[in-house]
């Protein structure tokens, strides 16, 4: 996953991002504010609560709502009939004016939210009063491509877990914000960093890694919730066999114009590159506790555009992967694009739901919204592709190979669906996806591995100034793959979607609008201007019988939407 208007900006931004040398940071309050004592209502989060999160209208316990990651809030107090009356209940301002991608977690009326550069706040989810702030003490070296982002915490027991830009996993005491333990996940000097929300499950914390723009070897790791001990590692690039089946077509059957003979010859000469082949995992994995399986998608191979030095399918990049929850062992994979040279990889979180199988019977599926603009519906047990949706945004000249001068192809490297998590309304069998349309040229440039700390794209992506960019919120019928409705937005969409049992769909825009739509028709029912880009996924919860909808408005680094520092919380008057 990577994307910039031009390589020039990319190099610059990468450089800036990487050089952060933060000073000492700690838990505390700024000198002008006084902390409110932590609410006594906050109780340890049990495994039963975490498992039942999908039907719990009181709390929002996982970044994507539940282990199935449907982002479907089961309460209907706010619904299509009354959403027009929605008003801000409070606005919480952080001390960090930089992109916000956080999905706030709410436990017993206490909200945990994060900012860029790894600050965590615990606040009262009804009044916005602050309980504590944790400021991560950043190591001297950080390496990351797409902004100093953080997408939120995971909670379990009395702890709050966060991945950091200097590639650590930090466990905080939920009541005080004090560090309980820290684990170094990987070496930031080698291109590793953390922006994703971890997943707390069954005594473990699961976390992937960024770094596909720096020649990492990606992974998902599991840590012990109690002491931060590493329990298992699944490498997203296998020791052997990354070359796969030499697929010539993508998941939709289109020819990818590979020169398989040349690739085979190159592989015979050198196969050591699996160590720097990329394969980041950007979003929280989904978990099926019935089968004890963890599902996630793996991002692009490194370097992004220059494929000649990484012959083969580059497994398991651009794939959905299922592994065993207890041991991290491989179960299956399904690759959408073999030997990707466009960075049209797999980023948005996997969702577990049900859909019609090939024989017309409902089956358990794992779905993914691709940067290609397709929603892919895979069989949860085998990984087999059941169907892919109509393209949600324009596709042109697929798959034109990148050239030294730059070749135009749609979609541009941001998608389609970027990291933005989708949401499902299981009653309607619909999935809602936030899409971008950013025409780009793909330019290749030979480049040797530069060591892990320098942005390694092997070329550049350039937006085409004369071509308009826009976004599209799309509802796809899971049983047919047909688009039920689509709403065009003036700017590319990045941030993610919330669906609710009130048959609503909430989605934010880079221009500051936060909107609610009718889940059936796509009719706009309500909007509120937050004054900065709403580029984070919304969440919903209930305290004292009242439903709230919360969303961060902090703008976006990657597409350069106006920055802010606030979480807006809405309720009916």
């Amino acid at each position: 996953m990577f994307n910039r208007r031009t390589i020039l900006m990319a190099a610059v931004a990468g450089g800036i991002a990487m050089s952060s040398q933060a000073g000492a940071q700690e838990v505390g309050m700024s000198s002008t504010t006084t902390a409110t004592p932590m609410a006594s209502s906050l109780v340890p989060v049990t495994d039963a609560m975490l498992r039942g999160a999908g039907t719990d209208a009181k709390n929002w316990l996982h970044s994507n709502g539940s282990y199935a990651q449907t982002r479907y809030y089961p309460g209907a107090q706010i619904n299509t009939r009354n959403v027009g009356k929605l008003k801000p209940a409070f606005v919480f301002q952080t001390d960090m004016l930089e992109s916000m991608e956080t999905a706030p977690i709410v436990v017993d009326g206490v909200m945990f939210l994060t900012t860029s550069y790894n600050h965590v706040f615990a606040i009262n989810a009804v009044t916005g009063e602050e309980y504590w702030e944790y400021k991560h003490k950043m190591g001297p070296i950080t390496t990351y491509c797409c902004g100093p982002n953080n997408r939120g915490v995971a909670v379990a027991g009395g702890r709050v877990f966060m991945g950091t830009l200097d590639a650590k996993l930090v466990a905080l005491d939920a009541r005080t914000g004090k560090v309980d333990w820290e684990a170094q996940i990987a070496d930031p000097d080698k291109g590793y960093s953390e922006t994703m929300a971890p997943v707390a499950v069954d005594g473990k914390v699961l976390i992937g890694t960024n770094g596909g723009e720096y020649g990492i070897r990606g992974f998902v790791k599991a840590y012990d919730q109690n002491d931060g001990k590493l329990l298992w590692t699944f490498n997203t690039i296998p020791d052997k066999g990354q070359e796969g089946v030499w697929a010539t077509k993508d998941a939709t059957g289109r020819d990818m114009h590979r020169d398989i003979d040349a690739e085979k010859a190159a592989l015979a000469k050198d196969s050591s590159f699996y160590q720097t082949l990329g394969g980041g995992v950007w979003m929280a994995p989904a978990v099926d506790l019935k089968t004890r399986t963890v599902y996630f998608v793996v991002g692009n191979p490194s370097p992004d555009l220059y494929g000649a030095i990484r012959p083969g399918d580059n497994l398991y990049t651009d794939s959905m992967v299922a592994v065993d929850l207890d041991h991290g062992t491989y179960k299956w994979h399904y690759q959408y694009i073999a030997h990707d040279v466009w960075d049209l990889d797999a980023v948005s979180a996997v969702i577990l739901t049900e859909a019609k199988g090939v024989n017309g019977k409902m089956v358990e599926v794992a779905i993914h919204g691709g940067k290609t603009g397709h929603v892919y519906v895979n069989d949860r047990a085998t990984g087999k592709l059941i169907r892919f949706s109509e393209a949600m945004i324009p596709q042109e000249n697929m798959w034109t190979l990148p050239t030294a001068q730059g070749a135009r192809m749609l979609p541009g490297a941001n998608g389609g669906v970027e990291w933005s998590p989708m949401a499902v309304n299981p009653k309607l069998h619909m999935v809602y996806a936030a899409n971008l349309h950013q025409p780009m040229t793909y330019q290749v440039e030979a480049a040797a591995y530069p060591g892990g700390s320098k942005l390694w794209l092997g070329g550049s992506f350039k937006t085409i100034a004369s071509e308009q960019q826009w976004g599209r919120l799309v509802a796809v019928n899971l049983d047919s793959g047909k688009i039920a409705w689509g709403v065009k937005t003036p700017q590319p969409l990045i941030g993610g979607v919330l669906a609710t049992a009130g048959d609503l769909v909430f989605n934010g825009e880079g221009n500051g609008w936060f909107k609610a739509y009718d889940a059936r028709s796509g009719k706009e029912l309500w909007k509120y201007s937050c004054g900065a880009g709403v580029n984070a996924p919304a969440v919903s919860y209930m305290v004292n019988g009242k439903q709230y909808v919360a969303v961060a408005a902090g703008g976006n680094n990657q597409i350069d939407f106006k920055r802010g520092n606030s979480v807006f919380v809405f309720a009916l008057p």
Partner: protein
Amino acid sequence: MNSRISHHARLTVLLALSALAAPVSAQPAPVGTPPEKAQACAACHTITGNSTNPAYPVLAGQTFRYLYLQLQDFKAGRRYHPSTDPSVATLSSDDILALAQWFSAQKPEPTGFMPDPVKVAAGRKKADEVLCAMCHHGGFTGQNEVPRVAGQHYAYVKKQLEDFRAKRRTNDAGNMTSVASTLTDADIDNLAQYVANLN
């Protein structure tokens, strides 16, 4: 886009200092106490990093991040030069952090380069055309992993551009090898004249 205030602030301070210091003396006082390992570099780069031999690059006032990465590259063999190699190979990551911090905090001094005004003008034109400033910042002051080249030794800059073009130097992740691939000998000469003349 994406700038962090602190970095801008740091850069501005450095520039202000160098502007003040420039006319006063050719051998500035060190800022702070050098790490012990910096003594090994002094023979070629001087203790403040204001090298006087044009084959040895000025390190003073170079960005921290760039110095850090180049030293890591020398150590790992991704960048090679017979002179620097032996002293750098034994440095630990902590040494490299300290050295990069030290040299980046020193004041760069004018090298005393006597430019050819015609070539300088041609070099400026070429630099505008190729958009060098998009990465190196206006006036080649550098930012983070992109080096400061303003006021660097003419001979050194020329050699680097030639090395990038010939792919003798390939630790740049493709950025400079791509830029240099279309430069002529005259372009390189003019660009080196132009940036060496900046301060």
